[in-house]
């Protein structure tokens, strides 16, 4: 862990009380290694440690704070600064129904996330309709239908319609004289470099006109995570991120990369397979987790 790494580096300093440039380099290098092991994007790590080094070199080692404490304090401050504040709510329609669209690459947890969001909103006494536009994956529609029932939300049956855009049109007809607070659209997983499928997603967005597009990011993703997030953001725009599968032992560095480079807020964390396993984002907790 970073704590152990720092212990070695700072053993020299405790004797002298001063942080030489060599000490700083070694400490910064430990941070670099820790962040790379946490799957933070390579370029983001380089920029981050460069910023930290500038701040540290500019500091006097004050009499009442150990250099180690000071250094760790700077790291924590820089991280939390990037991670942002929690409690950035879902975008809501000013009047009428709010449309949410859930996107991401294959297997990241979108369909389950749609169920979890519906469950959360229904528990807040909101009326939710779930819609699947995934006409590709075997049994995707059935999967969402089952989750809708578990979440006590309504489900729109596409009744064999094979065109995702037509499904969206049919839904907007269907909800016209109903009083749903939210309609949540599940989409098929697609790769960042799949141009035809990204085009399909753009067409769905144009017809759907979502108030909020949520990108589900698997927290186990490695160095291609930023490329993936950027592709979705450039193609259709991302409003918020659900950082998923955080119930494992992955460090979740993708959160830092996405926030730093794309500036998108992490709105939720997925912490398991059940419908209750969705929490509002906690930047402090994630910062400590990334540092290990």
């Amino acid at each position: 862990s970073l704590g152990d790494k720092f212990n070695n580096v700072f053993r020299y300093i405790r004797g002298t009380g001063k942080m030489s440039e060599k000490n700083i380099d070694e400490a910064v290098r430990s941070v670099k290694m820790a962040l790379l092991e946490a799957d933070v994007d390579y370029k983001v790590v380089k920029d981050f440690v460069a910023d930290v080094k500038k701040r540290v070199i500019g500091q006097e080692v004050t009499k009442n704070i150990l250099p180690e404490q000071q250094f760790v304090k700077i790291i924590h401050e820089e991280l939390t600064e990037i991670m942002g504040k929690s409690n950035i709510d879902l975008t809501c329609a000013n009047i009428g129904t709010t449309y949410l669209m859930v996107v991401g690459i294959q297997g990241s947890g979108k369909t389950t996330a749609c169920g979890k969001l519906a469950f959360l909103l229904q528990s807040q006494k909101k009326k939710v309709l779930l819609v699947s536009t995934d006409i590709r994956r075997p049994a995707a529609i059935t999967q969402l239908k089952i989750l809708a029932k578990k979440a006590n939300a309504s489900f729109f049956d596409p009744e064999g319609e094979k065109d995702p855009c037509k499904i969206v049109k049919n839904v907007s007809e269907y909800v016209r004289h109903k009083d749903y607070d939210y309609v949540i659209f599940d989409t098929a997983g697609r790769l960042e470099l799949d141009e035809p499928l990204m085009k399909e997603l753009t067409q769905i967005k144009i017809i759907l006109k979502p108030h909020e597009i949520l990108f589900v990011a698997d927290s186990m993703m490695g160095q291609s995570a930023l490329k993936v997030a950027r592709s979705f953001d450039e193609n259709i725009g991302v409003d918020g991120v659900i950082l998923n599968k955080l119930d494992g032992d992955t460090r979740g560095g993708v959160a830092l990369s996405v926030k730093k480079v794309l500036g998108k807020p992490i709105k939720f964390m997925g912490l398991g397979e059940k419908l209750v396993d969705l929490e509002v984002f906690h930047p402090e907790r994630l910062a400590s987790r990334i540092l290990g």
Partner: protein
Amino acid sequence: IVLKNTIDEDEIEELEEILITADMGVPITMELIDSVRAKVKASKDMTDDIYGFLRESLRTYLPDEWKETNKVKVLLVFGVNGSGKTTTIAKLAKKYKDEGRKVLLAAADTFRAAAVEQLRVWSKRLEIPMIEKADGADPSSVIYEALEGMKARGCDLLIIDTAGRLHTNKNLMDEMSKMKRTIAQHVSSSELRTQMILDATTGNNGLMQARQFDKTIGIDELILAKFDSSAKGGFIFSIARELKLPVKYLGIGEGVDDLLPFSRDDFIEALFE
């Protein structure tokens, strides 16, 4: 003529970036960089072929490719949530059916919504029989029923789909061990092959996943799914180094034919593209 026997820090940085962004992970990247530095220092006639040297070093990490010698009777497929297990099983089932095997599928994911239905769609498309039980049944009971039913159905290869599970979930890992014990009551260990499906987009967690699954039930081979993404899947080198596990196939798409046999040289080439 000036012979190059130093390597400047910019070149080292470039190497580090290539290796790290390929998800090789920090320990192997450091190891490779140290060996490059040592090689440059030691060899008096070092040309600019650092990449040739790297390719050679990377080859030594991966086990040699081996041919299937014993005829597998049971294929137990597992991995973390959403890694691509069910889809990969469809690809494997088709491949084995085309090779003349009589395949039987076991829908042992009795937990996730529509998991059985998802496999049933593939079983119908491929015209391969499938064993299933009611939702929430013990996965080992599905396996038991499938093993008992193989002979009667004239099937000689059982492929078992299991629920996604995190390697950190003790109960689910215990469930995995129980499945293996159930299988061991019916076939010898040489007739069982355990296959872990890894998502190619995984980073450092890939090694941690493989470690735990290998410790719990032992992994015979790996399949890297979603290799058609931008990810390079470099973590298979740390898995190979620590656990000596071979990658047998790469999943390169969502279609039933999108399965590529693993080639060590092609994979290493792709790392540097």
